[in-house]
C-alpha cells in the first residue's frame, strides 16, 4: 500500500536525533511490547510480511507521532484481534481508554500464489526496470524506485514473496536481487557520486 511507512526520499523531516549510544530499551514497556509481539506472531503464525503490514496499516498520524515500540504494540494488538485471540473492547476495558489499532487490510486474501521461481531471470550487470504500480496490499518495493532503471549487482537466493505471504497462507519463492540506482536518476536533486542499492524480488522487475 502507499502507506506512511514508505519514507524513502520524503522531505521536510529535519535533523536526525542522533546519539552514539543509548539503552537498548528506554523504558520497561518497550521491552514488554517487543516480547508481546513475538508472543502474538508465534500464536497466530504471522509471517514477516503480515507483521510488517500490520504496522504499515497504522493511521498515518499515529505512525508518525509514536515510537518504534508503540508500532510493535499496535501491530501485536491488531494481529491478536484480527486472529480472534481477543477483542478490541477487551483491550480498551483493560487499558481504561482508547486502544488504537491498525486500519483494515485493503485486499482480499491471496489464494493462488503461483509456482516458485527457482532460476534467476537476471544476472549481475543486467539492466532492469522496476515495475510501476500501486499495490494496495503489502509490498517491499519502495515507491522511490518504481519505474526506475538500475543495474543488478548481486543475485541472492530465493525468498518468500512478501506481497503474497502477508495475505494468507499461500507462499511463492522467488530470487531477490540487489539493484544499484544512480541517485541522479532517482531524484531531480540527486547527489553526485551516490549509488543507492535496493533489494528487490524477481516479480518487481522487468527488462527495460
Amino acid at each position: 500500500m502507499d502507506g506512511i511507512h514508505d519514507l524513502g526520499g520524503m522531505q521536510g523531516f529535519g535533523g536526525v536525533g542522533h546519539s552514539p549510544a543509548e539503552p537498548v530499551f528506554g523504558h520497561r514497556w518497550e521491552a514488554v511490547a517487543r516480547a508481546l509481539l513475538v508472543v502474538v506472531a508465534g500464536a497466530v503464525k504471522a509471517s514477516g510480511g503480515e507483521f510488517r503490514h500490520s504496522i504499515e496499516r497504522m493511521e498515518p498520524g499515529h505512525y508518525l507521532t509514536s515510537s518504534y515500540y508503540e508500532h510493535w504494540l499496535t501491530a501485536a494488538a491488531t494481529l491478536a484481534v484480527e486472529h480472534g485471540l481477543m477483542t478490541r473492547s477487551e483491550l480498551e476495558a483493560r487499558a481504561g481508554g482508547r486502544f488504537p489499532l491498525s486500519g483494515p487490510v485493503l485486499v482480499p486474501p491471496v489464494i493462488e500464489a503461483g509456482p516458485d521461481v527457482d532460476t534467476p531471470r537476471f544476472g549481475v550487470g543486467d539492466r532492469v526496470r522496476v515495475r510501476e504500480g500501486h499495490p494496495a496490499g503489502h509490498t517491499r518495493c519502495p515507491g522511490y524506485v518504481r519505474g526506475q532503471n538500475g543495474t543488478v549487482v548481486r543475485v541472492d537466493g530465493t525468498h518468500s514473496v512478501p506481497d503474497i505471504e502477508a495475505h494468507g497462507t499461500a507462499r511463492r519463492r522467488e530470487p531477490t536481487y540487489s539493484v544499484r540506482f544512480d541517485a541522479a536518476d532517482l531524484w531531480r536533486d540527486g547527489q553526485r557520486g551516490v549509488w543507492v542499492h535496493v533489494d528487490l524480488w524477481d516479480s518487481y522487475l522487468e527488462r527495460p
Partner: protein
Amino acid sequence: MSAGRHHPAAVSPVEQRVAALEALLTERGLVPEGFIEEITRRYESEIGPMNGAKVVARAWVDPRYKQRLLADGTAAIAELGFGGPEGDHMVVVENTPGIHNVIVCTLCSCYPWPVLGLPPAWYKDPPYRARMVREPRTLLAEMGCPLPDDAEIRVWDSSAEVRYLVLPERPPGTVDLTEAELAGLVTRDSMIGTARL
C-alpha cells in the same frame, strides 16, 4: 532494564495499553513464564555491537578471514559464533579510501541484529529513513561524518532478506594493537556507516 524511568504513580497511556495486552495474553496462557525477562535480557546483554566489533577486528588482522567475510558474510560471521534472526543472510560491504558504505531501511527498520543488536531509535525514525537515500552526503556531514566531494557513497536499503554490515577502514597507527584492542575501537556507527574511525 532502566526501571528508574518507570514511575508507577504516573502510568502513561501506552504503558496501560501494554499492560492490557500482556494481561489478556497471559490469561490465555500464551506468555511462557519468564519469557519477557529472558528475551529482554538477551538483547540487553548478549546481542549488540560488541559482536560486530569482533568480526571487524578479525577481518583487520586476518586477510583470509576478511576474504571469507566479503565472499560469504553469513558463514564467516557464524565462525565467530554469531547468527540468528535478522542475520541469516548477511552481506558485508567494505569501506575504502574512496568508497563509503552506509545502511538504512526505508520501509521499516531492518538491521543486522546478531552483530549490531537492536537498532538505535534514530535509525528507526523518519528523518534517517527518508533522507539517507536522497541526500546521504548532506546527512552524513550533519551526523559528524563529512566525506570528500569525490568519495563515492554506496547506500544499501535493506528492503528484502539480506542484512548489511559495513566493514570500516582500520584506523592508522594501530599496527601494534591486539585483536581485542582493535575490537574496542570499532563503534556501532562505523558499522552502520554513519561514522568513520
